[in-house]
């Protein structure tokens, strides 16, 4: 074991991040921040795994070397803090063993890992098939990439959620716009004095149809000179004289309300 490493994997499931004083599950789902002395104490213990450490050694390394004074009671308190942390992470609190009248010892499977790729090390440690090392590394790199992406998302979770909500609102706005707008497909044809003329579909009208429409407007005395109308026109079955239908609707415009009234004129042959 070396102090050069930043993190330790304890019993293959708990990561000790010495630099940040964090003890966490290896999936990063749950973490506990340790006090500074507790962190230094745990560092001492994991760095001397399965070795009995004297109380005096621990007090010196954890407190006195940092210009602090301490006592056995304080040491016990911090050992207690560590046990509680391990217990909260689902580990047996007896992972730290008390050696009566002597000191303490940690007894665990401890691996030193680099801070950047704890998962890589963990996964590699679980893979003992040396014939497939290249494949395993490639697979692990991929998996670590996924984990890093996940970590990136999780670290920016508020931004991610805000973005998702924003995109969702934009999408809903589009849906609302397209549903609530007039769902007509009326084609504006022309204006006749104060009247606007539309075709009731997306077809343009032939010159004959326009002529017929103008005759209907005249016959039915639709007064485009003095009043504003929207006129909607459609000719059905124009080629079949016996079944021809001319439909014309004149809706008097009212700027505020849309239309005051609509009159329909229908000619059936």
């Amino acid at each position, binding site marked *: 074991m070396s102090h050069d490493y930043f993190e330790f994997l304890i019993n293959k499931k708990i990561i000790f991040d010495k630099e940040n004083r964090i003890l966490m599950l290896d999936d990063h789902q749950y973490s506990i921040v340790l006090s500074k002395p507790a962190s230094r104490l745990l560092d001492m213990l994991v760095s001397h795994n399965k070795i009995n450490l004297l109380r005096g050694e621990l007090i010196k390394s954890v407190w006195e070397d940092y210009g602090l004074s301490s006592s056995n009671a304080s040491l016990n308190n911090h050992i207690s803090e560590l046990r509680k942390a391990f217990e909260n992470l689902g580990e047996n609190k007896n992972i730290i063993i008390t050696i009566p009248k002597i000191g303490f010892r940690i007894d665990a499977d401890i691996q030193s890992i680099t801070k950047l790729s704890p998962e890589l090390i963990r996964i590699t440690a679980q893979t003992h098939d040396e014939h497939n090392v290249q494949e395993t590394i490639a697979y692990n790199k991929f998996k670590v990439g996924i984990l890093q992406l996940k970590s990136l998302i999780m670290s920016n979770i508020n931004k991610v959620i805000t973005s998702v909500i924003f995109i969702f609102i934009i999408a809903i706005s589009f849906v609302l716009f397209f*549903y609530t707008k*007039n769902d*007509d497909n009326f084609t504006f044809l022309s204006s006749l004095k104060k009247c606007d003329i539309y075709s*009731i579909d997306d077809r343009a009208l032939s010159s004959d149809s326009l002529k017929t429409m103008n005759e209907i407007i005249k016959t039915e005395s639709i007064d485009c000179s003095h009043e504003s109308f*929207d006129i909607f026109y*459609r000719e059905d079955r124009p080629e079949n004289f016996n079944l021809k239908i001319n439909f014309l609707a004149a809706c008097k415009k009212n700027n505020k309300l*849309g239309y005051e009234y609509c009159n*329909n*004129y229908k*000619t059936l042959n």
Partner: protein
Amino acid sequence: MKKLILTSFIMILLSIAIYVYFIFNSKEPFHCDVQILSHITKDGQKFDLNLHTDILLLTNNKGAVYIIGTLRGERNSYLVSRRLYFTTNSPVIKNISQAIITDEKRHDRDNAPNELWKYVIPEVVGVKFYIEVKNLNKNAILIQGVSNPYYICKRS
């Protein structure tokens, strides 16, 4: 992660709510009315129709058309006063629903002959047909069959 799951869950619920809203909204009840002036030429005879029509579409897929007016021929003049009751299904295509006239009630004074009336409303009681209902501008509604418009009426 929990936040993400919760957000996704809320959005799914919201999407369902909006979908349901639009499903129901597409059958938004309305009442509209229109004056219809129609000129019919059949078998060498000419008829002029002048009808005031009220159309009601209710939330339960039921509706009614109230028609009152006159049908004038070259020799005869008839009074029209009748109600048509209909039901519709959910739209099969956007805005297009299947409809069926379930009943027709004629007032005693309605003496318009069926031979002429069939040119006014070709659909008969008990036979399914398709109607398309579209919003038009702020307060008008186009109601049309597969091949020709029935009405453009003003929402009341």
